[in-house]
């Protein structure tokens, strides 16, 4: 069995800005998605891969931010080495990987290295990727997903040879349509990846010497600087993921991702879900420390965090309720995220509409209440983003409440 390692690219505080206002209080990798930190999902999927010895998380967050999660993850997956490596300087995704190459390649030396972007919600088909990867002689296998034609240009677009699954062309966020298959943010590389990064680095240095427009820095991006030449050299292959896939860029997308992961849990981790009943409509995740009144109706697609109190006659559907929040009598929360330590008064209604697949600019779909927001009794908040520590006593719709 080939030694395998996993790398999760967690980004940094300057990254998850579109996750605001949620990421104001909670770093993006730790935002609860389906009741678990965002980063837990790729991590737990990696932990199931046969022969995987180690998972390395790379990011810009301070060590203290990640320490709690790392400790818990080590407890949950005791047979796997889990560590966090902090980048101090922006090196780009490939630059960061190269910077930490010694840590990644230390014995047992991995034959295969999985690399996952943090903001991907999918079923992580690692086993299937290994199966394809072991059949070809390329450097890497990328997970490709098919998206709607209109949405494709927002991602890295992939053209493959349908016979061989070989990648023939790659363009990051093209100006015009190239293909419906896009980079799913999950890769499997041979350890020779680092040689390829080295080549890309040398080329960049050489170009910088000739071309005054190219900055002579160490920033090297995995997509544009490494995968593009690998595609041209026919050294990349594509595994087509036919299961669910979603990128989590905005706070609203965490509601969609939660519902996708909860549906997946009903197959993979049914013990994590609450038992369905006349008032619990599956799939629903309820933290064991939350208190739910028996007359409240919860679900489907709801994740309720630790210490949450849900009073009588409350309705929650397609929503995320974060730690320490209280939903008072008869309140309704639909298509929304209620941040930590909020109070939603009796008969208040927090409402939105499902996140559209191609996000329309300037329109708020899902309502997001940040931390410690208080809603007066009977108030309506619809398709709003409410910043921390606000007390709302008037109805609001379609606005950002500062």
């Amino acid at each position, binding site marked *: 069995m080939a030694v395998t390692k996993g790398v999760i690219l967690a980004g940094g505080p300057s990254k998850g800005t579109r996750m605001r206002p949620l990421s104001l209080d909670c770093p993006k990798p730790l935002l609860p998605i389906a009741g678990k930190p965002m980063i837990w999902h790729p991590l737990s999927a990696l932990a199931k891969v046969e022969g995987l010895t180690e998972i390395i998380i790379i990011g810009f967050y301070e060590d203290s931010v990640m320490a709690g999660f790392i400790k818990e993850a080590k407890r949950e997956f005791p047979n796997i080495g889990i560590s966090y490596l902090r980048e101090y300087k922006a090196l780009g995704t490939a630059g960061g990987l190269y910077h930490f190459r010694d840590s990644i390649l230390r014995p047992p030396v991995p034959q295969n290295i999985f690399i996952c972007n943090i903001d991907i919600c999918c079923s992580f088909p690692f086993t299937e990727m290994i199966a394809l990867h072991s059949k070809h002689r390329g450097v890497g296998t990328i997970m490709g997903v098919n998206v709607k034609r209109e949405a494709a240009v927002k991602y890295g677009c992939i053209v493959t040879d349908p016979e061989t699954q070989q990648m023939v062309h790659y363009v990051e966020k093209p100006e015009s349509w190239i293909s419906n298959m896009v980079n799913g943010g999950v890769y499997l590389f041979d350890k020779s990846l680092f040689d390829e990064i080295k080549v890309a680095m040398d080329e960049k240095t050489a170009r910088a010497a000739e071309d005054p427009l190219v900055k002579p820095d160490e920033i090297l991006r995995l997509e544009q600087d490494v995968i593009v030449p690998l595609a041209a050299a026919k050294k990349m292959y594509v595994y087509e993921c036919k299961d669910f896939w979603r990128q989590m860029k905005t706070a609203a997308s965490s509601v969609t991702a939660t519902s996708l992961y909860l549906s997946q849990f009903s197959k993979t981790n049914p013990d994590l879900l609450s038992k369905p009943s006349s008032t619990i409509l599956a799939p629903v995740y309820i933290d064991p420390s939350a208190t739910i009144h028996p*007359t409240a*109706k919860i679900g489907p697609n709801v994740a309720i965090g630790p210490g949450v109190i849900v009073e*009588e*006659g409350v*309705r929650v*559907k397609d929503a995320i309720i974060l730690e320490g929040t209280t939903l008072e*009598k*008869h309140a*309704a929360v*639909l298509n929304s995220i209620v941040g930590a330590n909020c109070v939603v008064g*009796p*008969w208040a*209604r927090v*409402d939105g*509409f499902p996140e559209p697949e191609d996000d329309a600019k300037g329109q708020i779909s899902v309502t997001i209440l940040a931390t410690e927001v208080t809603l007066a009794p*009977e108030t*309506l908040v*619809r398709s709003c983003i409410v910043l921390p520590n606000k007390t709302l006593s008037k109805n609001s*719709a379609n606005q950002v409440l500062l």
Partner: protein
Amino acid sequence: MQLSWPKPLVEFCNKAMILHQIEALVKAGVKDIVLAVNYRPEVMVSVLKKTEEEFGITIHFSVETEPLGTAGPLALAREILGKDDSPFFVLNSDVTCVYPFEAFRDFHLAHKCEGSIMVTKVAEPSAYGVVVTKPGSTVIDRFVEKPVEFVGNRINAGIYMFNPSVLDRIELRPTSIEKEVFPAIAADQQLHSFDLQGFWMDVGQPKDFLSGTCLYLSHLTSQHSPLLTDPAKNKWVYGGNVMVDPSADIDPTAVIGPNVVIGPDAKIGPGVRLQRCVIMSNAVVRDHAWIANSIVGWNSNVGRWTRVENITVLGDDVTIKDELYVNGASVLPHKSISTSITEPRIVM
């Protein structure tokens, strides 16, 4: 709402609007009532048959074959109105108030002129016809339609009393009583104005219907009327001004009021919150729904955890599915709503 039920029969505070008027007229000694209508709905005939028997009065239907304006119908009913010398009242069916007909009649008889107009004070008279009297007198000097400058704040309340001689001034053709008849009587100094004390409301529009309901409920509260639900005996009453038909079924965990009317056989579920709204007969409001500033029509069904507000009017037999938000919708009868209505509109 008028699509399924003749407007005069729409219940205002659980009693058909026309019955409020008929009862007040009977109290003032009226024996003959003429209903000027442009059609003669059978349902109205049968309702009023009972009223005739109950009060020992005669109700005549005077059916227009062409629209006759506001004065023409009086000429059409000339035979009944002019059968003797006694004066008669004229009422617009959309108007609700405390109907002080006895005092109005006494006033009319005392001044011995041809006509009297009930006037009410409004804060913003610019949208109405203002009645201007001669200084220090109740004799009407002139009418100013939608005044640009302030000339007074007394407006025509749509309730009049006339001697039968007025009928000689009206021809049987489409005529406006306000524009054609009144100026002529006023010119002869035969028209007086009578100040209405207490509330007055033209309840033809849903918004005004709700405001009128609130005024009427407040009036009943000030009278300590037994028609109102006693908050001391019903813990679910919140803030008073609540009128619930005894046949309605109210869950004790609901919170109702202020300013709510609930009709016969209506059913209000657990955890429902109602304020400033009218729930017509046989309607069902299901668990945890929240309704404000709205009218729920007969036999309608409002789903669980819905929020209905902002002058929403549900016609007869409308269904709102669970968990929806309905903002300012006018929903025609027999419709079923299954997606939220976030901005005010008519649902056909």
